[in-house]
């Protein structure tokens, strides 16, 4: 023992020097810590997300199999939604979802990008922080609050002022024909625009803040104005990321339920006038799921959910890919 330990530095500990003899100088093998277990547990948590999504997709597909086999692809193009006659088509809801989302983006994109430009390029840091915080706060307001506000404040405003004004100035367009009763696709789109605004503003702000300062200085030093610099250099550099923020907002607008349900009027119809009430995919699920009688009715609602799931998944995936490309990809000049 003692003779052996002479060749290693820690000679006093008999036990250890014996293990040295067995495994060479100092242990390199074996379970020295819980890292391996920790790693396995965390990997399992990570994979659980994938499993959860797969399960969700599977359950939606299984739940809508009856409707899928009965209506096939025609489900998305059929306008009739008649639970009594057991005829179900999603076209009116898809239309309502698309129209409200487009209105939301038309309003929120210029506003959100404008806010981002102000926060990054113009506002003094203190003001920028406060306004940036307020914008993010918009995202934290529960959607039922937006719904109530939309119903009691925005809807009368649209009925009495916004709609008459649009009708008077742009009434030759079919979108602004007729009369508004307050609730309708326009009101729903406007509520949505405020709800998605923080996504566009916050992500665009981060994107613009990531535009390298030398690019701005390079442009300003040439005698370019602030406007030319923002329009000609900063926005082109950030366009991919801003595009990502817009699509992220679209994903949010497509799926928003509560606030829209409260202000859209819940009437399944396809009309051009935005003053008219409509119905969205998420709203009809929320309204009718609890009273859906009969397996086909339930299955049709589930299929709506499946369509919504696939649409938002695709939209969000695209958005993330764009934002990621902005930061890392070949165009990403990090």
């Amino acid at each position, binding site marked *: 023992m003692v003779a052996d330990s002479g060749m290693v530095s820690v000679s006093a500990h008999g036990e250890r020097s014996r293990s040295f003899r067995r495994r060479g100088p100092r242990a390199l093998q074996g379970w020295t810590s819980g890292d391996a277990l920790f790693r396995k547990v965390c990997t399992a948590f990570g994979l659980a997300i994938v499993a959860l999504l797969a399960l969700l997709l599977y359950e939606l597909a299984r739940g809508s199999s009856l409707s899928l086999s009965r209506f096939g692809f025609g489900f998305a193009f059929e306008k009739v939604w008649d639970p009594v006659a057991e005829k179900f088509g999603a076209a009116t809801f898809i239309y309502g979802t698309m129209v409200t989302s487009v209105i939301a983006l038309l309003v929120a994109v210029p506003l959100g990008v404008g806010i981002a430009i102000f926060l990054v390029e113009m506002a003094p840091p203190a003001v920028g922080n406060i306004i940036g915080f307020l914008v993010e706060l918009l995202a934290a307001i529960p959607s039922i609050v937006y719904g109530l506000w939309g119903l009691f404040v925005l809807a009368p405003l649209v009925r009495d002022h916004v709609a008459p004004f649009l009708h008077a100035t742009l009434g030759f367009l079919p979108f602004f024909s007729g009369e508004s009763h307050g609730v309708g696709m326009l009101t729903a789109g406007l509520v949505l625009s405020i709800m998605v605004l923080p996504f566009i503003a916050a992500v665009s702000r981060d994107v613009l803040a990531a535009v390298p300062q030398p*690019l701005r200085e*390079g442009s*300003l*030093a*040439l*005698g370019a104005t602030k406007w030319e610099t923002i329009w000609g250099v900063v926005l082109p550099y950030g366009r991919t990321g801003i595009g990502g923020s817009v699509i992220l907002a679209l994903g949010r607008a497509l799926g928003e339920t509560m606030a829209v349900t409260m202000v859209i009027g819940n009437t399944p119809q396809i009309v051009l006038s935005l003053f008219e009430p409509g119905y969205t995919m998420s709203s009809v699920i929320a309204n009718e799921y609890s009273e859906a009688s009969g397996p086909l009715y339930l299955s049709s609602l589930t299929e709506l959910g499946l369509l919504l799931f696939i649409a938002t998944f695709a939209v969000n995936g695209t958005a993330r890919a764009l934002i990621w490309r902005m930061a890392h990809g070949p165009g990403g000049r990090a």
Partner: protein
Amino acid sequence: MHPMEQSSPRASTYLAEGAAHGEAASKTSADHAGNALSPGGPSPKMRARNLTVRYGPIVAVTDVSLDVPARQVLALIGPSGCGKSTFLRSLNRMNDTVPGAVVSGDVELDGQSICGTEIDPVLVRKRVGMVFQRASPFPTSIFENVAYTVRVAAHRGQRDVADRVEHALRQAELWNEVKDRLKESGTSLSGGQQQRLCIARALAVEPEVLLMDEPTSALDPIATAKIEELVSELRKGLTIVIVTHSMQQAARISHRTGFFNMGSLIEVGDTTTMFTRPREHQTEDYISGRFG
């Protein structure tokens, strides 16, 4: 009529007097007039008077008075953080873009102050262009990089944009290397080419003065040599102020050299004189590599 064209005969007179200037300046070195061109000589292209620049509580440049002679290269040397870049940035109001920067004193361009609130810094920068240490091509094609400034300089929809782009790229001695790949991204060029692209971009505005802030410090020796050649070519028609860390570079390409330390202008004079017989002890120490 270009204002510089009027002053060019006098500028050449100044060149002839340049050798004598070191002597004249040393007599008046006690006051700030020592930093000015000799009295009765040509009026300088630019002139800084008692310029002080603060970034919040930090004083970056202290009471600097310095003349920039027309159609010459003025090199500014000094250890890192000595204020030479800050000084350079005040020559075209770029310090305006730094939050918290306060500039006092005055800078004149052709005898006219550029510092007042009534002066539009955008117009100043069209006449006094700038190239930075790190080349930063815009995320567009090589052509668009230059075309952008052509449009900035003049008006949109100009028909001879392509001609002007070519002219600027030729001036920057980049045309032959990029003429077949104008549609490629500006960032696909090598570091030295990117810097020349940025110079072309600056030249497309047709400035009267070009400020260069360590334009070669991120480049290899060959790319550096190309830029230096370019500067030697450009100085024939342009007033150039170049900040450099390389004293050899200052010696190679400049007519006059100013030495900054701790935010102050220690000494300025004819480059040859500065490097052989500096007036100030500090300058000698720096040039001979004892600090910095």
